[in-house]
Every structure is written in C-alpha cells, then in structure tokens.
C-alpha cells in the first residue's frame, strides 16, 4: 500500500440506520446455517429430486448400474454446462453448442473411421476444429460487436448444415475402441477381478482426503487472515456429509464397472475450471465483465479479449462434448447434439446463474445438469413418455429461476 490514509474524523451512523445485532451464539450459528442453506439451495434441490425419484422408482434410481449410467448419459451435457455457465456469467449466450457438437462428431468420424487416422490424432484434430469454430464466433461477437445470441443462432444453423455436409447423408461408425472409451470406457480391473473394484474405492478415498485437506487449509488460511469462518460444528458436519456422499458414490461405482472415463474427464474439467473461475485473473475478469461491462472496461480489463477466449473455450468444450456423445453412441449421425444447447443453458440457470450475467458458478451448473439428468433418468425408469419429460423439465427450469428471483428479492438484492 502506497499511502496509508487514516480515517477522517466522523461519527456518522452506519448505512441504512441501525443494524440490530442480536449478540447470541446460538442465533448467530443458526443464521449462519440458514444463509448457507440459502446459498446451497441448489444442492438441497438435487438431494430432494434424488430422494423423490429413488422413492418413485422403488430404488432403481440408486442402483449401482443406474448411478453409473447417470454420469455417462449426462457427461456431455455437463461438459457443455461448464462452458455455458462461463459464457452466461459474462452476459452472453451460446445457442450453437449442439450443432457444433454434431459437426465435430461428424468430423471425428471422417478422421477416425473413413480416413483411418489414429484415435488420438482424430481427437486432437476434432478439438482443434471446435476451437476454430470458437475463434470464428468469438471474432464476430468480441471484435465486430454482434450480439452472441445472433452469432450463435447463425452458428446453430451453419454448423448443423456443415455437419450434414460432412456426413454426406450417411451415418459414420463404428469407431475404434480407444475412441469409444471416451463415452463408454471404465477404469477398473487394474488389480484383477473383484466384487468391489479396489481402484474405484481407492480413488474415492483419495478424493475424500483431498477434499478434507483442502477445506481445512482454506479454513486455516482464512483464520490466519482474521476472516470470519463458519462455526466449527457446521464446518465438520458439512464435511462429513459431503465425504459420506462421495464415499457412497464411489461404493456404488465400485459395485458396478468402476470409474467411467467420462467421469474422469468431468472431474478434471470441474477441478480446472473451478480454479479458473475462482482464483485466476481471467476468471475474475469474466465476473467483472458480467457484473458491469463499462466498469470493467474502465478498470483496464480487456473485455473484448475475454469475450473472444470465452467463445474459443466454449467451442473446444462443445467439441469435447461432441466426441463423448459420438463415442457413446459409436455413431456420428445427423441428429446428434439436437437440443444440447437448451439442456446446457437450463443447467446453468437451474444452477443459479443470472440472466443479466455476473452471477453463477461451475459447481452450480454441474448440479443443475445433474438435476436435469436425474429428472430424465428417473422419468425414463418410470416409463414416462418423452413428451411429458420435456414439459416437466421446462417447468423445473421455470420454477428454479423463479425461486432464485424470489430468494434474491427477499434478501434485498437488486
């Protein structure tokens, strides 16, 4: 700090009159828990949906095989949701991701099947094509200044069309095994055949240990800087609950085929993008731009550059989603990626992102995506038709955002 400025002599009252602090440990703790619950409302919503469908499907929802399926079936939506929530936080939207996924899936088919490229080369090239699509859209949005809605609406048509061109009116399949592992593979059996896969349990245990260490370190760091931390009881309770959830999840996967490759990809993405959004300058700039673009610009943030890279990122993630989807179906077809954009956007909004931008989290978007996934899966098990599934999902989106708006208004936000 260059120049310490001491307080001016004044004794005027705090903002908005007298705040009424009730000095009481219990109510303090309670208010902490309540505000935490408010913030984690989306998490609770997921638990409610899971419990509801576990009940409605007589427990089929929570069978190991189904839990594994839930991840694999929704992996590509979750990948898209990560990129989408970033785009939404910056105040944009991307309608093209479904078409881009289809286009890239088709390209990968040509590379890996028609041209017989090695699978890894096909994957790298496909991701590069996704990035190139992002460069194209990012250019129009960031440097020409055309609203993202228009550019990506155009992209939705352009890349759907190009996907059809690449496919040449035919499906492409079947893909090499290594490629298919992206969508269908499992990591297990490294130590031989067991009733319970030891690798999966080990990874689960490691995840819990890593989480505990990270949480404790964060807490210690805050305390060292004299920041307020949540009451220790609540902290421990939360940690125990989350650890138990991870443990049960790992146990379920271990009973079935082990860890899906898709889950590994997702975990890596969530970890990296979580850090990007919370701890890097780039991530902070995204929030700043979404919160107030003018103020961000006048604070020296290169808003165009951030916008541009956001769409390059989105394009790459859309490509990855396209690869996972194609790998899972073992087929690149013209209908691939249909409606993905809507599911990804819904996931971001259910996860608490704000339409005006500036608000949202990667974790929220993932949970939002999981809620949609559980709804899809649960209703399918119950034998509910696709038409009603659509309607229910629409209603859930509306209610989730309405709840969010209500919550904000109650807490006196803008």
């Amino acid at each position, binding site marked *: 700090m260059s120049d310490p400025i001491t307080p001016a002599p004044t004794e005027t009252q705090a903002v908005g009159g*007298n705040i009424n602090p009730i000095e009481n440990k219990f109510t303090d703790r309670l208010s902490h828990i309540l505000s935490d619950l408010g913030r984690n409302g989306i998490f609770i919503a997921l638990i409610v949906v899971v419990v509801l469908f576990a009940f409605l499907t007589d427990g089929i929802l929570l069978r190991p095989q189904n839990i594994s399926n839930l991840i694999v079936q929704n992996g590509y939506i979750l990948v898209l949701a990560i990129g989408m929530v970033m785009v939404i936080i910056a105040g944009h939207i991307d309608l093209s991701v479904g078409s881009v996924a289809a286009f890239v899936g088709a390209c990968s088919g040509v590379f890996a099947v028609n041209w017989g490229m090695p699978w890894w080369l096909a994957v790298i090239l496909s991701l590069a094509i996704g990035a190139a699509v992002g460069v194209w859209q990012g250019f129009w949005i960031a440097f020409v200044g055309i609203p993202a809605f228009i550019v990506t609406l155009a992209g939705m048509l352009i890349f759907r069309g190009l996907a059809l061109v690449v496919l040449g009116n035919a499906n492409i399949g079947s893909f090499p095994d290594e490629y298919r592992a992206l969508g269908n593979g499992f990591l297990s059996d490294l130590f031989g055949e067991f009733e319970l896969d030891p690798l999966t349990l080990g990874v689960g245990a490691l995840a819990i240990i890593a989480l505990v260490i990270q949480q404790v370190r964060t807490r210690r760091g805050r305390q060292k800087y004299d920041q307020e931390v949540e009451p220790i009881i609540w902290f421990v309770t939360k940690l125990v609950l989350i650890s138990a959830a991870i443990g049960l999840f790992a146990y379920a996967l271990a009973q079935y085929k082990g860890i899906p490759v898709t889950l590994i990809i997702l975990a890596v993405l969530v970890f990296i993008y979580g850090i990007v959004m919370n701890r890097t300058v780039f991530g902070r700039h995204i929030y700043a731009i979404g919160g107030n673009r003018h103020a961000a610009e006048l604070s020296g943030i290169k808003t165009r550059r951030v916008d541009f890279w956001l769409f390059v990122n989105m394009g790459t993630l859309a490509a990855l989603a396209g690869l996972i989807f194609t790998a899972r179906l073992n087929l690149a077809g013209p209908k691939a990626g249909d409606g993905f954009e809507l599911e990804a956007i819904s996931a971001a909004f259910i996860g608490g992102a704000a339409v005006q931008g500036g608000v949202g989290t990667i974790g929220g978007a993932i949970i939002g995506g999981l809620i949609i996934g559980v709804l899809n899966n649960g209703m399918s098990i119950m034998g509910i038709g696709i038409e009603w599934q659509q309607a229910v999902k629409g209603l859930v989106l509306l209610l989730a955002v309405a709840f969010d708006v209500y919550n904000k208004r109650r807490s006196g936000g803008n």
Partner: protein
Amino acid sequence: MTTNILEMRGITKTFPGVKALSDVTLEVARGEVHAICGENGAGKSTLMKVLSGVYPSGSYEGDIVFEDEVVQFSSITDSEAKGIVIIHQELALSPYLSIAENIFLNNEVKARGLIDWNKTNHEAAKLLARVGLSDNPTTKIMNIGVGKQQLVEIAKALSKQVKLLILDEPTAALNDEDSDHLLDLILHLKEQGITSIIISHKLNEIKKVADSVTVIRDGKTIETIAKADVTEDRIIKDMVGRDLEHRYPEHTPDIGEELLRVEDWTAHHPQDPTRVMVDNVNITVNAGEIVGIAGLMGAGRTEFAMSLFGQSYGSRISGRVFKRGKEIRMRSVSEAIDNGVAYATEDRKTYGLNLIEDIKRNISMASLKKLEKFGLVHDNEEYKVANEYRKSMNIKAPNVLVKTGKLSGGNQQKVVLSKWIYSDPDVLILDEPTRGIDVGAKYEIYTIINRLAAAGKGVIVISSELPELLGICDRIYALSEGRITGELPIDEATPESVLKLMTMEKPR
C-alpha cells in the same frame, strides 16, 4: 380544514434487522415548498416511499393524513389518484418514446378505446408550456438533455392533477443553469397552489426555495425549521449531529516537480467525427497539487478526461502526454493504469462499480495482477487489502463481503477511490467525486483528496460545484466548449472570475 395538506404521524418502518424509520413526524402546510434534508441512508427516500405507496399500508406503523383524511395507499396508483406524485432521483422516462408518450404513459388520451395522438400531442404541448419547455412533444426523450427530461417529469406530474409534488434530489444531475430554471419552476408552481416536497443535499437551493425544512437523521425527525430560522450551519449540524466548522479540510500545498503535461489534446465525437468535443487542451499537473477543472455541463470535462484515460471516449484523438517530462502513450485503459494514471468516473453506478459484487472484488478489480501468485489470485491477501481500505477510508460496512449495491453513495465513492488508490497511481483524475453524496461524506472525500496530494500525487478534480473547487484546489482551469479558457491560481480565483471563464464563448 387545517392548514396542513399532509401530516405523517409516528411513521415507523422496519426492514429485517434494520429500523429504517422510527416514529417520524412530518407536517407539510398547504401551498408551501417543504425541504427534507438528511444524509444518505438517513431515511428520506424510505419516508417518501411510504408516502407514495411504494411500501403499501400495513407494511409500516403510523398514520398518513392527506387533506384531513387518513389515507392508506397500497400502490403508487392509489397515491397518484389522490394527487401525490413522486419524481425519483433516477428519472423514470423511456428514452425511445416521445415526450408526449412519456407524459401520458399509463394515462393515455383515448377516444373510443384507441389513442388519440393529435390530442395527446396537443395536451402535451400545453403541459410543456406550463413548465417552460418549447420542444416538440414528438421529440424522443433520448434527444433532449437531462435538464429538460426533469421538466418533462414535472409536466407528467401536472398531467395527473398533482396536488403534492415530491422531488427526490431533482438537481443532482443538473448544471447550475438548469438547476436554477427548475427551482424557479417549483416556485412558479407554488404560486399555482401546488405544494412541493423537495429532497436535497444542496443547502443553497434549499435556502432559495424552501418555506420550511425538516431534517431527518438515522430514521428520526430531528426538527422542522421555518424559513426565517434556516441557516446552513443549523441544517448541517442537524444532519450530521455535530458542528462542521469548516466545510473543507485544511490543506497546505507542498507542490513538487511537474508530473503530467498534456499538450494540444483534441478529441472528436465518437459517432460524429466532425464534431470537436475537446479542443486543443493544454494542462499540467504537479506532484502534490490539486488541480480543478471547472466547466458547465457539456463543456467537455468528462470527454477530456475519458479521452485522455486510455482513449475511453471519442474518435480522432490527437495530442501528446508527458509524464515527468517523458512522453507516454495511453491507447488503452490498461496502458493508462500501467502509466500510473487513474480515472474515477462521475457516474459510479454505470461506469464505476460492479454493484452485484462485494467491496473486496471491486477494490481489487483494477489491480488483480498485483494479487497474482503462481497464476492464482491470492484471495486471503485480497481480503486483507480490502479490509485495510475499509478501515482507512472509513467505508461503513460490517465487512468487505457486502455488495457495493447496498452501500450509500458516499461509501460507494470510497470504494471507487480505494480501487484507484490501490492501483497505485501517480495522477488521479476524479470526475465529480462528491456528486450525490451527503455533507459528512463529502468532507471525508475532501480529506482523502488532501492526503493523496500530501503523498505526492497529482490530483485533477472535475466538478460542477464551484465552491467545492474553490475550497479544495490549488489551481483551477476553466473549460468551455471543449477549450481551456483560462487558468487561475487559487488566490486569484473567485466565483465570479471562474464563472466568467467557464461561460466564455468561442470567438465566431
């Protein structure tokens, strides 16, 4: 019938955890202009929202008696039906609609279920004449200035057969000329029997128009003063609860070497590159010096500052900038920041703050690179830094995790200043640093400016309040029509001499 048109008795309004108003009493006599004074956050706006039905009856305690009748409004529509019209600080006009459309918005002139446009425009023209406007009623709102927009709001109020007109800081965004016109209009309306309540920070305008003044502090009525007894000192004392001996803190200049020199700075309008907005401006700022730029609204003050600050405004910008004698380039905001120049905008809410983000992240916004360690933002350090600023700048908030949107104007401004001070600049350009801020907080801002100068920074203060510039600056430039029309050291500057330069027109 009593002489009071309005009595608010024992009004208490509580928000969760906060008592915004406690047992407030307000009596407004028929046909008077009644001023309400109070610091930001004192409860003035809350009181007016109670009165106008924004907070419906039942959500507060106490009685409102309007024209000898206890009234209970459940919405603005109810209060307007009784003739109570409130004009908010942020004007509620739609920029893409015409003047006439705005005046009759939600009150459309209809014939057989359809809007009668001829009559609409005709009636609008009549109302405009009453407020002294001669503009065509079909002009779009975005094409007239803020001063005229304020008058359109009043015309709109007149169209609703207003008996009690409430103006919430009506002159906050106006220049002196427009302010005078508006105040004259309020007096004129008074002659026509319209009672007005005016909320204002500006003591001189209160003295000019008000027949009585009620001061509110911390949600309580302090006292109501009759016109004869109104003095600035008494109002200030009531508002802040203490004496403010000096409106401006003591400042002994310690002026050093030349810090910044701007030569032949010219900028054109961004949409119309033939229009010169900043015309060949030459200024210098020395270390430890507070330099004022005085100019009427539209003189090109903000345009000059923003075109200088990373070319954030304008087109076809030319001129040279020297820092400590060495030429520097500021083609982008980040280049300007790297060169040690900071610019705090006149419009905090639109250009200065991320209102949905907390104090901490707003302060770090322009200097995240300083907090970066191994590619990651050191968030605990960020918290610490922000907390230090919260204390040293006296930002009134329980902690730095409070969203800036919830702070009062003065505290928001302190956050903006913290942000720029943390970017460690040598030269700070402060554009209207005390606009919309109450007296107590103004003093604090002046103190901060003094400390910046004492630390060897060069400070440029742009202001439309002449007394403020005369009170804090060491030297004043006057700007008119984009040109510097003169430069006065503070001991030669008087309101008259500066004003003369500010209004000097281009030789034609």
